[in-house]
């Protein structure tokens, strides 16, 4: 395999025990809270930190503690975009990009100009980094990283130092740029939305270990346990107990403080098992107050609205179930649906928890 394979561990200074792969052309997002070890992992790949284990990239062994192999950063073909970009303040944009190139100077400068054009920075070659905007600096850092013909691109929170409008534009550019690069790309971020938007796969890291890795949808909506669910900010997270199982239909019933729900059953959860379960806000359907429909029989829950928050054409409605007013259910509705149903704080409404959206996790 020509991608990146990492298997590393260490006990100090912070424990780390991680195994992951990133294929050519694949973008792997490392997400997790601050201090979880995401950036350390990136530094290990770049050779800025030496753990125990093995790192192979582009067919080259970069680290193999068993065989006493540990290439220095200079000999690992990494394109590293640092969080604050780490541009050399005394060098022009062009020199920043061309610096590490071993080709004769004319060729190096020509190549640097090409990369700068590719990241839409033509015309700024002779400027100093301090005179550029955050977004422009990020692009210089990206061009510098690509200049080395890297075998892997490492991005450490590359969009965190710019304003939101620029961030959105840079993300789109990144998505476009990466399609032309047949390289493994590892992106560190704490922004789940960013990970979902850019990544082919997500690895959820916590306390130096991978809690879960898989497709973005998988990791963000079907967490392996309640800890993973909390880390990906799943708010509709509850405990329950399996009360009945219908193996033939593949369904089971759960008792939870809000009443009883029906969910898809999976093996290994016999009646009596305690489970954590969750449901994305999009898995809750509002019972229309205008035209009552047949759907209302699927896991109906009645409750009172305690808060409505508007954002980007949507309304997030927070509901206190009537049978368990201390709990909160979150549902997202298009704004026009919320308005047409005249939803307001204090009103009573009914919702259905869609069976296929309910995700059971072992205790």
């Amino acid at each position, binding site marked *: 395999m020509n991608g990146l394979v990492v298997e590393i561990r260490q006990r100090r200074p912070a424990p780390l025990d991680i195994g992951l792969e990133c294929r050519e052309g694949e973008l792997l997002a490392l997400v997790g809270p601050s201090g979880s070890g995401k950036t350390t992992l990136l530094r290990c790949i*770049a*050779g*800025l930190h030496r753990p125990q284990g093995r790192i192979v990239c582009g067919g080259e062994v970069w680290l193999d503690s068993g065989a006493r192999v540990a290439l*220095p*950063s*200079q000999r690992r073909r*990494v*394109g*590293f975009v*640092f969080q*604050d970009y*780490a*541009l*050399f*303040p*005394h060098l022009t944009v062009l020199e920043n990009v061309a*610096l*590490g*190139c*071993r080709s004769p100077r004319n060729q190096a400068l020509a190549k640097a100009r090409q990369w700068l054009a590719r990241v839409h920075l033509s015309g700024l070659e002779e400027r100093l980094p301090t005179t550029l905007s955050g977004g422009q600096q990020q692009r210089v850092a990206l061009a*510098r*990283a690509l*200049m*080395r013909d890297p075998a892997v691109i490492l991005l450490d929170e590359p969009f965190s130092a710019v304003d939101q409008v620029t961030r959105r534009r840079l993300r789109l550019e990144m998505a476009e740029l990466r399609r032309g690069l047949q390289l493994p790309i590892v992106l560190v971020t704490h922004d789940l939305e960013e990970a979902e938007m850019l990544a082919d796969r997500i690895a959820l890291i916590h306390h130096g270990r991978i809690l879960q890795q898989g497709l973005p949808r998988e990791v963000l909506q079907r967490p392996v346990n309640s800890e993973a669910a909390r880390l990906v900010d799943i708010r509709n997270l509850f405990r329950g107990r399996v009360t009945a199982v219908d193996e033939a239909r593949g369904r089971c019933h759960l008792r939870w403080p809000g009443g009883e729900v029906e969910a898809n059953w999976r093996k290994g959860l016999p009646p009596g098992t305690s489970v954590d379960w969750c449901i994305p806000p999009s898995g809750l359907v509002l019972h229309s107050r205008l035209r009552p429909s047949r759907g209302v029989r699927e896991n109906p829950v009645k409750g009172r609205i305690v808060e409505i928050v508007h954002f980007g054409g949507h309304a997030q409605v927070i509901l206190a179930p009537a049978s368990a007013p201390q709990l909160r259910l979150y549902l997202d509705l298009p704004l026009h649906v919320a308005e047409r149903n005249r939803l307001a704080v204090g009103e009573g409404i009914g919702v259905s928890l869609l069976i296929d959206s309910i995700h059971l996790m072992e205790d």
Partner: protein
Amino acid sequence: MDWEAFIISFKLASWTVILLVPLAILLARMLAWWRAPLRFMIEAVLALPLVLPPSVLGFYFLVLFNPNAPLGGWIREVTGATLVFSFPGLVLASMVYSLPFAAQPLLRAFETIPQQLREAAWCSGLGPWQTFWKIELPLARAGLFSALALTFAHTLGEFGVVLMVGGNIPGQTRTLAVAIYDRVQAFDERSAGVMSMVLLGFSLVVVSSVYAIERRK
């Protein structure tokens, strides 16, 4: 005006800068990112010449490099020369005496370079030596200018060490500062005044250029 003394002062200051500053760069660069328990000891030794009376430094120098002492004797055997009461000895003593003035600004300058910039250089494929030449030294250039200017000016103004180690040999070890002292002893206030004026003006120019560079940084 003792032009011979002026030339010797100038020669001494130049040689001290030429020999000491590269050494100070090496020392400062090594110390800057070195996190060891004994680091404070080394920093203290580096700063010691600042507080030590020149006569103490001169005294130990005479004790060590006296041709009858083991080290001084060995040097005379190897080179056929002695370091006490000679120009090379004066240069060596000046280097020790001016060490803090060369090392401190460089150390501070290297320390303020963010670690991430060095890492970015390594990840761009630059080896440690290239990183030093292309990134670290250019970013520490304000410290380098300060080190050059302060070492030069400080050596020019040396008196105690020069008198102790070099004596007052005209054409060999008599510097401007010593010549002023010599003229005052001989009640030749006019000569002393002219030479003092020259030294004052020269030092003022050097020190103000250091501050100007610091300000620009």
